[in-house]
């Protein structure tokens, strides 16, 4: 397992921030609150790794901090009686559609256009999966079709939508540049680790 301090210096902080924001937005349903949580969780994580070295999965470490910050967020607003895992669990599925706000407008438009280009049967299939939350096996049972055929149809339909999605915003493999404050913190910490 990687050392946390080493991991932080190697980790794209902007990627972490983006991941935490996804987590938070899904639960909170509010972009500003999600950004606030992401900032706070990252700050706590960076502060924590300045202390004694710990060996654990850094992603899990930061995600755990984020979950606590989200629970804190709810507690501070009096939405739950106490800060517990239960409190976080209680609201975790309430606002899944908030994540859609993280998609660029162009991505949304292209996916919608690609969806309109699918046949009725494929749209029906995706609707059952994505809006009625059914598994392909459950869909197969409902549509009285072999599960494998349903999976293949779904895969082909999603490939067309994914092509439209990626065309709007190609996957960037390069590391994102972290914001100035985070870059400074990371550089300071890296120097400390080297020393």
């Amino acid at each position, binding site marked *: 397992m990687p050392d946390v301090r080493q991991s932080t210096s190697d980790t794209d902080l902007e990627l972490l921030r983006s991941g935490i924001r996804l987590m938070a937005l899904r639960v909170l349903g509010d972009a500003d609150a999600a950004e606030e949580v992401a900032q706070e969780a990252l700050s706590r994580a960076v502060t924590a790794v300045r202390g004694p070295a710990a060996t654990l999965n850094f992603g899990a470490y930061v995600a*755990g901090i984020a979950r606590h910050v989200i629970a804190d967020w709810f507690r501070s607003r009096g939405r739950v009686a106490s800060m517990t895992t239960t409190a976080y669990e209680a609201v975790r599925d309430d606002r899944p559609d908030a994540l859609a706000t993280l*998609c660029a407008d162009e991505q949304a438009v292209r996916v919608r256009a690609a969806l309109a280009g699918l046949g009725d049967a494929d749209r029906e299939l995706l609707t059952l999966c994505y809006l009625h939350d*059914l598994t392909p096996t459950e869909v197969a049972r409902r549509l009285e079709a072999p599960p494998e055929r349903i999976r293949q149809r779904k895969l082909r339909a999603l490939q067309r939508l994914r092509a439209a999605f990626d065309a709007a915003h190609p996957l960037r493999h390069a590391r994102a540049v972290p914001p100035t404050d985070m870059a400074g913190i990371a550089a300071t910490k890296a120097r400390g680790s080297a020393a």
Partner: protein
Amino acid sequence: MTEERSHQFIHEAELAERYVTGRMPGPERMAFEDHFVTCAECQRDVRFASAVRAALEATGARTPSRTPATPAAASARAPRRRQRALWVGAAMAAGFAGIAVLYALPSRAVTALGGVEQPPAYVGVAVRSTAGRGAAMFDDAMKDYSTGRYAVATRGLQAALAAGQDSIPTDFFIGASELFGGDARNAAAAFARVVSLGESPYRDEAQWYEAKALLRLGRSAEAIAALAAYAPADPAMGARFAALTDSVKQAVAR
């Protein structure tokens, strides 16, 4: 497991889709979050799944009268359609303008709160007694329930009820089967029956799932009333009731 292989698994298991649609159990969800928080590819998959869901919702809103592919698919969507038709009819009768009809539709923010990840667990307990006909039918139906055959389980449980099986657990699992079979209206009715029968080990959860079923139908006020009907004995359950009530009020306010 190499990163490439782990991503192959992530795609095959449709983790991003299940994360977005709320079909992922808690431990699995946390493990996935632990991974994607440092994984650009998986974050992108989550965004893509969200975009698909949003596009489907938008398309569905534009073409609500589209002919379903099959009768089975039509029945899966029936509760939402019936609800919309009622709202539209009421608004027209009142002489509202078209824009008012749109505002009267159950909001997506409310219906999304009706999501339930996993069916209520059933743990059968063996007892030293001669099982009656109703009990045997109940056991058979719960085998179907445990394997996700909810429509079959519903029929079996209704038969068990008719054969004299204890109505509280039977109605509770009829509600759960209906909920996961896609009929929120029947589910709400079954859970309401359990609640109306008074204090029982099933009442708290019946209130919770009744509220969830009502939310799926867009009946936010009734869902709040269901949650407020009785205070749960378990403080953790009380916190969940409070959080959901608060979320419903906020969704309605939006």
